């Protein structure tokens, strides 16, 4: 199922928003209930072609995120399947209470698509970074949280979301990534995928950082360290069995994600490990509002580069912290 490249860093890169809009159009052709809901974010969500194909089915409420999410909940009440597309920072931050009350607590069939998440907006700064979204939405009951790693997984997760009933949050990456999965990949909710076998240490990652974790494993192999790489597209519900197995079978776990260091994937893994099989966990992410810099620069700066992740793993294996 997975393509483990000898050097994944050399592979062509893709913007996951292209897979997003292509898949959304495919789903909309097949099912008249599917509609898009946006906050003027037609261009930044790459939905111009969708609007052309389905002019009545792209609801643009203007720059009004609270209204956007409430409207989506009402559309779901009327039997539609709304896919809300907006920059993740504004979707989750501005409309958090609507997400909690109108979507999650009301248990409406709304799909929230957080575009350009993490630090994708780079130099635009922390107002436009969305590193908190996973932690915020993971705290809300009824909410499923999915962080796809490449265009294949983005498309697969969207198809799964359209076919399932209930609230879902999917991050759609803007920062380009190589393909990690082959085209026959099928998304399974709440399942980790072992994208590389290993028994010295485990790297758990998702989103734009997964390929970096794979590249880190390649470097660790050169040092004689066998790193298991778990892809964890579903942050909630978490595959706790895979986490516990990693804690039991390897020397420790490094989590790496394009999000705050704590509360997201790393937090979820640490909660599981502490309660079910105490082991060493190193959480990589952003510990503060990021300074000015491009997305790539910021990932490197906070240890989310292949070398940074490999360093954290080496440290964990050799010093136990």
């Amino acid at each position, binding site marked *: 199922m997975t393509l483990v490249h000898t050097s994944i860093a050399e592979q062509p890169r893709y913007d996951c928003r292209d897979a997003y809009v292509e898949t959304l159009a495919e789903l909309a052709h097949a099912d008249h209930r599917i509609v898009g809901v946006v906050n003027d974010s037609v261009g930044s969500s790459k939905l111009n072609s969708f609007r052309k194909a389905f002019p009545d089915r792209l609801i643009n409420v203007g720059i*009004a995120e*609270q209204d956007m999410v409430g409207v989506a909940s*009402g*559309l779901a009440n*009327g039997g539609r399947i709304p896919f809300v597309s907006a920059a993740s920072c504004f979707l989750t931050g501005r409309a958090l209470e*609507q997400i909690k009350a109108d979507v999650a607590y*009301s248990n409406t069939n709304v799909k929230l698509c957080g575009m350009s998440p993490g630090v994708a907006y780079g130099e635009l700064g922390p107002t436009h970074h969305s590193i908190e979204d996973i932690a915020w939405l993971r705290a809300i009951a009824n909410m499923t949280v999915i962080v796809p790693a490449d265009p294949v997984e983005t498309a697969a997760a969207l198809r799964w979301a359209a076919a399932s009933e209930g609230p879902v949050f999917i991050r759609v990456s803007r920062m380009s990534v190589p393909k990690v999965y082959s085209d026959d990949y099928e998304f399974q909710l709440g399942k980790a995928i072992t994208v590389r076998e290993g028994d010295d240490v485990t790297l758990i990652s998702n989103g734009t950082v997964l390929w970096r974790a794979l590249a880190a494993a390649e470097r660790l192999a050169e040092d004689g360290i066998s790193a298991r790489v778990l892809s964890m597209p579903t942050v909630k519900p978490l595959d706790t069995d895979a986490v516990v197995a990693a804690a039991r079978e390897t020397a420790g776990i490094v989590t790496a994600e394009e999000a705050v260091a704590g509360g997201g994937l790393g937090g979820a893994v640490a909660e599981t490990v502490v309660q079910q099989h105490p082991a060493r966990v190193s959480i990589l992410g952003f510990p503060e509002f990021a300074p000015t810099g491009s997305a790539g620069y910021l990932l490197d700066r906070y240890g989310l580069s292949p070398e940074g992740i490999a360093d954290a793993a080496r440290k964990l294996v050799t010093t136990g912290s």
Partner: protein
Amino acid sequence: MTLTVEHATLPVLGRLPIHSSRAEQIAHIAEAAKQIRIQDLKLVHHAGAGHIGGDFSAIDILATLYGAVLHITPETVNDPERDRFILSKGHVAGALYTTLAAFGFLPVAELATFLKPLSALNGHPNRNKVAGVEANTGPLGHGLPVAVGHALSAKLDVSLRRTYVLVGDGELQEGSNWEAMMAASQYQLDRLTVIVDRNRLQQGATTKETNDLDPLPEKAAAFGFAVVEVNGHDHGELLDVLSAVPFRPGKPTFVIAHTHKGHPISFMSNNVAWHHRVPDAAEFQQALTELERPRFTGELV
């Protein structure tokens, strides 16, 4: 004070036959409103909690909607083509539950569980637990956007189903309402009716003292709505207006229903203290006596 099933005394009134006269409908709504108030008073008094002021300002509107306006019955509560009613001022859940029970959506005996542990009847309504509730409301400024979304779904379906949303006037201080009103106008949602429970009181003061909404009719008109003002306790006016929407093709309707919090109880009406005060035994008896008077009037006190 403990609420028990003995306090669930509400008669089930149901709906009149379709061809009833206007006078019959008004009499039916008036009787429903009276019985709903009596039951709601008992709920709040015996449960020791609730928002009786806001309940009583909204009950005539709720009784009119469920008694004669909405195309929805206990049998069609899940019919995709039903009219939708969204209670945005979710803190008057007690009034909504009692109304739903009066018209057969909820067993009257279940009212005795109001606010009790594990009851479906929370202090704010839950659509997944109570048949007839369309949205989980409580935080203010949520119902109107949801109603816009529903009205949009009806428009996409080329359906004539209507959407009504009841918002508090203080609630209009939430900016999300104005976002939603712009979208309702932009999409020409003329099957959407916003009803404002204009009692001019919020939790601790008048709206005017807090964050004045006036000139509200002009503001709503400027946002693209057809605006109508009614006496929110006059069942005839409410029936005529709420049945007649839309008034302007292509425009959503904004009904400003002038009400009094606590209406028509002499010591509660238009008194800010009764936002969520609970009547003691003497107050309970007096309110009950006033409600049970044979000549129950819709006039503003």
